[in-house]
């Protein structure tokens, strides 16, 4: 009995490999879940993951393979907007369904009919963070983010939203990833004498930033982590202790707890980011959509997704509903803080 195949393109090597691997785990758990529940129309669901190597050419070749050789009806992924966008563009042109589980560029919205999006895009995230920071009474904030599509989006967007509220962004730094130290960037920010810092960063880079911020004595001001689980994943707990932050809505509720449990048993460690939850939801949703439409073609998936969303679907990241453009309405965000070495809601 043939399995029904779906595809994913993820950064399994290169600078975003950590998150790529985290997403892959989510997908894997999702497939296991669907199959444990009886699969898709009585068949097993199978997942083909291709490496993008953080390179658009490789990613597009991988997407092409998935679309034209494996003939999968739906492809999930990438993480970097600069790769997700061309890949999704191609997939939509081929009529394959694309499911965004990692990129937050607002351009995701205009990809076309067969493009769906599960996560909150940067404009929503920025608005959420700006309101949260403002509500905490902070008015003069310095921002440090990586110099890529994501970081640029956060930095510019946050400033815009924050200033709309009447706050002031004292300094912005787009740091170049992969350096051995960010002391100099941090010190430049400190010269602006902000009353709080907002940062967003990937695992080990954030670890350096957090450690050095502490060494430089900058932690006497509040630190706000944007996409907190990603930002503190590799930082020793005693260093990040006391930070606050926001998060793309993470796994929550009973469903979420069960999922976190499953993740823990499968991989012997906690989440490395929130993205695995979206990846998991993506797969489960697709399984449901196929069952709903009773077919596994791209058109079926597209139809099924709409239908499932109409009926109301709850994933580990909360209730999922798509608007007419295939975008998740009211994508969830959480407010978190790090206390006693644990990320807890605040």
């Amino acid at each position, binding site marked *: 009995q043939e399995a029904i195949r779906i595809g994913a393109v993820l950064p399994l090597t290169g600078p975003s490999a950590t998150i790529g691997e985290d997403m892959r785990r989510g997908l894997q758990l999702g497939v296991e879940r669907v199959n444990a529940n009886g699969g898709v129309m009585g068949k097993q669901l199978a997942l083909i993951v291709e490496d993008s190597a953080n390179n658009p050419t490789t990613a597009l070749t991988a997407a092409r393979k998935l679309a034209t*050789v494996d003939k999968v009806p739906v492809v999930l992924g990438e993480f970097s907007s*600069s790769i997700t966008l061309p890949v999704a563009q191609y997939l939509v042109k081929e009529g394959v369904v694309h499911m965004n589980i990692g990129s937050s560029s607002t351009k995701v919205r205009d990809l076309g009919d067969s493009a769906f999006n599960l996560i909150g895009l940067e404009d929503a995230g920025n608005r959420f963070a700006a309101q949260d920071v403002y509500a905490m009474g902070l008015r003069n904030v310095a921002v440090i983010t990586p110099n890529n599509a994501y970081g640029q989006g956060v930095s510019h967007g946050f400033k815009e939203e924050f200033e709309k509220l009447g706050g002031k962004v004292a300094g912005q730094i787009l740091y170049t990833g992969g350096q051995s130290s960010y002391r100099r960037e941090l010190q430049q920010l400190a010269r602006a004498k902000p009353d709080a810092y907002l940062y967003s960063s990937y695992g080990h880079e954030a670890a350096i930033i957090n450690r050095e911020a502490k060494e430089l004595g900058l932690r006497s001001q509040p630190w706000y982590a944007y996409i907190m689980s990603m930002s503190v994943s590799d930082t020793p707990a005693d260093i990040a202790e006391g930070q606050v932050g926001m998060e793309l809505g993470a796994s929550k509720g009973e469903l979420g707890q069960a999922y976190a449990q499953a993740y823990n048993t499968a991989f012997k460690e906690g989440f490395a980011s929130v993205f695995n939850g979206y990846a998991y939801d993506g797969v489960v949703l697709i399984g449901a959509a196929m069952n709903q439409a009773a077919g596994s073609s791209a058109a079926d998936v597209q139809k099924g997704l709409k239908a499932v969303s109409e009926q109301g679907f709850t994933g580990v990241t909360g209730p999922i509903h798509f608007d007419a453009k295939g975008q998740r309405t009211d994508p969830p965000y959480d407010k978190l803080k790090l206390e006693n070495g644990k990320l807890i809601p605040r």
Partner: protein
Amino acid sequence: MFDFIISVVTIGGIYAIMTLGLNIQAGYSGLLNFGHIAFAGVGAYAVGITHLQGWPIALGLPIGVAAGVLLGWFVARLGKRLAADYWAIATLAVAEILRMIAVNEDWLTGGANGITMIPGLFETLARPWNAVAFMALIVGVVLLVAFFSARLGNGRFGRALRLMREQPALATCLGYNLQSLRTRAVMSSAAVTALAGGLYAHYFNYAGTEFMLAAETFVLWTMLMIGGIGRTAGVLLGVVLVQAVYAAVPFVKDMLNFSSDMAGALRMGMIGLILLVCLMWRREGLLPEKLREPA
């Protein structure tokens, strides 16, 4: 499968054009350009910016080639007094600086997001035929470039370049203007490579900064060295092989049923291994440069 093969051939063809371009510098003239991808990047961004600015898209390629040639002129000037290794790093530096400009100046280049929705060529044709037409175009360009680059290498210009490559002092003393030779070699190579970059942008409907990473230049170098530097047939063979490996890796992974958490490691490892085996087995490349017999 058919579609996939067409796309592999097309991408391979684009890389072949760039590698043939690199061969004019590295193979014929012994100029170690580690920033070669910058020429392609300029070509791609020229097409992208033409699109962004709303200029007639047909202007993209010519603008790209012109900009590439200009960059080539500049880079060659830079090499006036630099020895080979040092020039190599200088070119790398130029490429990195250009990439950083592309990342940071989003008013011009779309920033780190890159430029999307660049129109393709032959989009009016029906579904498989537009891809076929594009492939035919690329294959045609590859053949043309290969033919001309072989001519260039075997002819009097190529001979001058090769003498410069091996014994610059002797070449000077025989009356060659090394600076002019170098400039012309780099500019020809830049023109070809920028063209390939422009075609890339049209093909992928996209121009972005990841494409300009130093790693891409190393891919070109790999193709060049595996096949046989300095020899057109060798270069083409190298491109075919490397492209075949790149295209095959996902299938091998599926075939051997590797779990997907090893997919990334496997991809890198396999390419590295194949490259290494090739180099160890045929050290001069598969088709090494021969002594040329003047006809």
